[in-house]
């Protein structure tokens, strides 16, 4: 499974503007639901928020993977957002989070979304790749970085 099969070019947000955890979830959810009529925005916000309440989805290295499931969805939808200044996302190392990959899966998804998340957690550990993502001047270059990283695996 390739990352670029999950995240299309138009699902890259080079500059998130929110600075708090609830606001950033709202911003990311808004972006994802705007691009997809099947996603109910309020519902997505709730699903992501509920998951964070269980335990933060920050996975270290300044990366977080908020995720959840929604009914009436045909396939996994994902977007990537960047906050260069970093956001306090209750990460385990206490460090701010810069890269957010949001993933939402159909309610009846069995396994596929976890496989995708596991893959993301692997790819987004590479420090050089993360630096390149952070330094990329625009969405095109961020997407380019994703595509290059995919070809390595």
């Amino acid at each position, binding site marked *: 499974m390739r990352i670029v099969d999950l995240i299309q070019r138009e699902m890259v947000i080079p500059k998130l503007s929110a600075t708090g955890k609830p606001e950033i979830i709202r911003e990311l959810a808004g972006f994802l639901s705007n691009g997809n009529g099947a996603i109910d925005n309020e519902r997505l916000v709730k699903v992501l928020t509920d*998951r964070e309440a*269980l*335990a*933060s989805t920050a*996975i270290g290295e300044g990366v977080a993977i908020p995720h959840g499931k929604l009914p009436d969805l045909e396939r996994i939808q994902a977007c990537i957002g960047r906050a260069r200044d970093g956001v306090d996302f209750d990460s*385990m190392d206490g460090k701010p989070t810069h890269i957010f990959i949001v993933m939402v899966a159909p309610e009846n*998804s*069995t*396994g*596929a*979304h*976890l*496989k995708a*998340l*596991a893959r993301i*957690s*692997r790819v987004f*550990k590479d420090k050089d790749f993360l630096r390149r993502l952070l330094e990329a001047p625009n969405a095109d270059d961020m997407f380019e970085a994703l595509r290059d990283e995919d070809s390595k695996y």
Partner: protein
Amino acid sequence: MYVIVVGAGEVGRYVATILVDEGHDVAVIEEKEGVARDLESSLDCLVVHGSGVNPDTLHQAGIGKADLFIAVTQVDEVNLVSAMIAGRIGQKPMTVARVRELEHYQSGNMQAEDMGLSLLVGPEYSVAKQVVGQLSFEGAGEIRSLAEGRLVLLELPLSVDSPLCHETLAELSSTFPDPSLVGGIIGKEGLRIPRGDDVLGADERAEIITSPENIDEFIILSGKPWHHVRHVLIIGGGSIGYRLARELESQRLYPTIIEHNRHRAEWLSRKLTKSIVLLGDGTEPQLLKEQLEERSDAVVVLIDDDEKAVLIGLMVKHLGAKKVVVRSDKLEYAPIAHKMGIDALISPRRALANHILAFVRRGRISTAHMLGDHEGEVLEFEVPAAPKNSKLLSTPLKDLDFPRDSLVGGVIRGERVFIPDGEALFNPGDTLLVVALPSAIVAVEKLLR
């Protein structure tokens, strides 16, 4: 091997049972007549009623032919003296003595050899270490270090969403990060060795052998939320609790300890300057509720009553604790405890038996990790340069006739760590990790000699 065990308490009985199961000749010396009789009727071994410090009793138990002598009574001094005498009057048996305050000897630079013994064992310290390991593991379930940290053994509960519950292990091999393998499955029927067409159930636990870098991926694949422990509540400030708190303090995690004995609580608060010591009854629901509401996210239950410990574990889970580790020697409770959300049962008895068994298998097998209530073991084994089994170095793994209830779960060759396929050939010096049910252990040992 001829083995004498002194003391038919929890530990002695447990170790003796495992040794008998594995086909060793065992004699047990027990001072209390009732206990001795009881053991005689339940275990196929020689039981000698008498004192482990009496040379006559040792002779009766067959000290002259003993290869290994294990003293595990409740009393440290008895164990030490008994093992010393055994060493003197026997034909050079290996001697093992259990001491509760192991660090006292170690900090006084007193090694087993200084007392003429082969090994001193004390479970308290290793239990505290194990608990620390569990607390730093962010997934649900258990973690253990294998082959000096080159690999880990994860025992993961699964959510219904986990791909492990929907695809066969063969299909999943492309999903799993390298190197990794499901080496065992713990289900209703106990431990089983998986096959390629196995699909796991959401009520089962997967025993996964993998390298430490892959832990996060498996936590995600399990489908259970991960959690980073920030504050630990310890119920019971006994010797394990004290060691655990000290260990946590050194990692800048400052725990809260609930201790019911006033003197002990005062002693703890003097010794543990950075922990919070509360005087109170840690089995009191109201107190636990207050503590959990305040800030604890992990709870470690360290009370001596095996049953009550599990019950308190269930209660704190119910009260919202994210991670729960319980000290209990009643490993029979593990399936139900796991089902109700307790992450790990840590058994001092098992820790001690692990240590002793590793010693019994000395030679090519360096370490044994017990699975469940001795439902199986992960053995670490070094391939000899000139094996007695001449096929070992020249035959592909698939033709080596490994017993059905076993599998080679990993090979460490110098810098390389890999999961062998059927065509793999072993080299001298390779470390093999073998998962085996008890029925297969003797055959595996023979094969790898």
